[in-house]
């Protein structure tokens, strides 16, 4: 009946690939979010004109396909800078900036959604700018930005499948290696899809949980 040449060693191989996917995603989303917050706040403080150069650079990261960014960044590091850095580092750098570009917009939108009257009220109560950001803007903006941020994190996780072009053996690449050897594409892709689901489902649920909890208080 149902027969496969897949062994437990191959499943461990796939799990290692999944681990790499999680690692790349975690690093990129973490750094990207930090950068995104910095850029998003700066964008609000400096105004669109002074911030235009950064917006331009971030727009490049948003508009050029990720695959091309990865290939070009890798070639740049190897040919122009002549550095021997690992594919994982290149992948994390590119994905972080890619995440940052999107996260900047999310943070900007979140801050923008806090009513100006509320912020003015805070300042007229004698709060400093930092206090206003910390106690008024942060809690309100986070609630608004969270769903988009969860969507971004899930998107980056799936986009991380492209880092195979810089020699990072993540989940999809591991699957392709097994497909080449075992010649069972549909079955292996099914398992690969299941792995992706196992990784992203908890994150999506966690986001849903936070949203629900924060909307009540």
């Amino acid at each position, binding site marked *: 009946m149902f027969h496969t040449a897949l*062994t437990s*060693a*191959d499943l461990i*191989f796939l799990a290692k690939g999944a681990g790499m996917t999680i690692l790349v995603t975690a690093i990129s989303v973490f750094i990207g979010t930090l950068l995104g917050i910095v850029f998003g706040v700066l964008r609000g403080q400096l105004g669109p004109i002074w911030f235009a150069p950064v917006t331009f650079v971030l727009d490049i990261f948003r508009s050029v396909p990720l695959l091309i960014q990865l*290939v070009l960044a*890798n*070639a740049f*590091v*190897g*040919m122009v800078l*002549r550095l*021997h850095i690992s*594919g994982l580092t290149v992948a994390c750098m590119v994905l972080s900036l890619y995440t940052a570009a999107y996260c900047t917009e999310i943070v900007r939108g979140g801050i923008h959604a806090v009513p100006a009257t509320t912020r003015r009220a805070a300042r007229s109560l004698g709060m400093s700018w930092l206090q206003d950001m910390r106690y008024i803007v942060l809690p309100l903006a986070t609630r608004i930005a969270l769903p988009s941020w969860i969507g971004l994190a899930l998107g980056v996780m799936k986009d991380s499948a492209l880092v195979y072009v810089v*020699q990072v053996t993540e989940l999809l690449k*591991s699957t392709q*290696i*097994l497909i*080449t*050897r075992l010649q069972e594409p549909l079955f292996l892709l099914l398992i690969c899809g299941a792995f992706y689901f196992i990784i992203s489902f908890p994150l999506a649920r966690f986001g849903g949980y936070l949203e629900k909890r924060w909307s009540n208080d």
Partner: protein
Amino acid sequence: MKMITLAAALVAATGFAGTAQADKLDDIIASGTLRCAVVLDFPPMGMRDANNEPIGFDVDYCNDLAKALGVKAEIVETPFPERIPALMSGRVDVGVASTSDTLERAKTVGFSVPYFAFEMAVTANEKSGIKSFDDMKGHTVGATAGTFEAIALEKQVQEWGTGEFRPYQTQADVFLALSQGQIDATVSTSTVAMANVKTGNFPGISVVGKAPFDTDYVALFTNRDEYGLINYLNLFVNQQVRTGRYADLYEKWVGGALPSLTVPNAYR
């Protein structure tokens, strides 16, 4: 004034000489790692074992090269079209990737002398009594449609004027037809022929000899301006043949008659 210019020129020249980089051979030895581009979906030259570790003729060849250089080997998997881009973007140092040394490619990369040759071999059904290429005259033969050997074989059958040529969709179909006796013989690269005979999926067939079609010579490659490294690679290929390591590897991964790496009546 002239002295100052001269002195300035000297200083500048020394500066340039100082910044001139060590060549790639030195870089590899200094870095302690040799990064080889290897194609891993091309058995028996490159493939993966049950633990998904790279194995094959090219993998062993890269390991030998690293050993000769006294460094660690790193196998970088590159699909066929990615081999030369991987070198150009600095992801690998050397290509050990069954790359035919075409003049077109030599405009971009520098090739060593050939380290392997894909000869065309005749595989026959044992019942047909075919013992050589010429014995195929008058028999029904077949090959994978559209390949180099299929076109050459079909032409040969027409030249003989007797017998029949049948094209098949895949290499596996050809060997299945051969095993079932639908065709009496086929021509394919020796590696493919040996690999299929070895699987045991096709009983009653064996490799009986060479076909007088063009041999596909493949060479190691690196950046074309790295003469130091190319010289080293040439000597390395020579040493592999001289020490019998080439014959050992051929026996281990392919088997059968060892192909010659030199072209008769030509240098290099």
